[in-house]
């Protein structure tokens, strides 16, 4: 499920002086957290009912989660991936009730 995209955009040419604002090796991590399958999601259910009452037919299994972005200094995408995985397990998601996946993009 983990979609890792590493696109180091460097169209400026190798000799360009690094800009202090864009750290070398900074990557953006996008974390998607959703209620775990089988765990009641009352927000999702309420929105599902609201969509039905608005006339949107055929809507089912609405899940409402959380989207987190963060910048991370890392040498490689593997390092970033390992670090992001630990962050999710230890703090960003509660593995008891939530599933998570993340994407990593070069800054």
């Amino acid at each position: 499920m983990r979609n890792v995209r590493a696109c180091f955009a460097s169209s400026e040419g190798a000799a360009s002086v690094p800009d202090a604002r864009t750290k070398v090796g900074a990557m953006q991590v996008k974390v998607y957290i959703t209620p775990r399958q089988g765990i009641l999601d009352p927000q999702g259910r309420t929105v599902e009912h609201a969509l039905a009452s608005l006339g949107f037919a055929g809507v089912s299994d609405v899940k409402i989660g959380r989207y987190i972005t963060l910048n991370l200094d890392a040498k490689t995408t593997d390092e970033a991936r390992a670090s992001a995985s630990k962050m999710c397990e230890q703090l960003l998601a509660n593995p008891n009730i939530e599933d998570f996946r993340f994407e990593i993009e070069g800054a």
Partner: protein
Amino acid sequence: MRWGVIRFPGSLDDLDAIYGLRDVMGQDVQPLWHKDEQLHGVECVLLPGGFSYGDHLRCGAVARFSPIMKSVGKFAADGGLVIGICNGFQILTEAHLLPGALTRNRTLSFVCERVHLRVENAKTPFTCTSRPGDILTLPIKHGEGCYVAPESELLQMEERGQIILRYVDAKGDATDAANPNGSMRSIAGVCNDRFNVFGMMPHPEHAVEANLFGADGRKIFESIIAFQSVPEHRGQLRVEA
């Protein structure tokens, strides 16, 4: 008996807990600041209700990393008594000191009412002055009190007697209508598998005086005091389900 009441940024019910224990029940209470790593020789640690760290990310998820929680984890590992009420319960689940998790109420509404609770296991330090099946009436006030855990874990908890309190109606039946937040199996309070860490969503500290909406909350605190007054129990856990 010496109690420690932790104050996190955003704790609300620490003062009621201190009032109930110290002023009403004559206990020795040590307030504990969350950045303090010392527990100052307390015999029971109480994590109060409130909105620690503004409930950011998830309720209790950030408070779990407060410096004092390392000491609480060690204290619990050594058999020390820990009780978490409401947000304190949420913090204990996030800290993995208690199983399961607390999620949004199924109605999505904050609930603030008095509920009936049935004592399911009276052989714990937190319920030993009650009998199984006794009904306690206590206030609840929370938005995230829906207890969830994997079905396999719930089965194990039932077998071991870790489900301590259930939401019931006035007759003592755990009906769906009497379940205020959608908790699985109407669970209102649970223990760890060693029975020295306890979490409950209802508020015993708000019910310690008969003329102020009942005194059933005292039964929880009196149990802890009775348990701790037995010399063999001090510092070491002996009660089993």
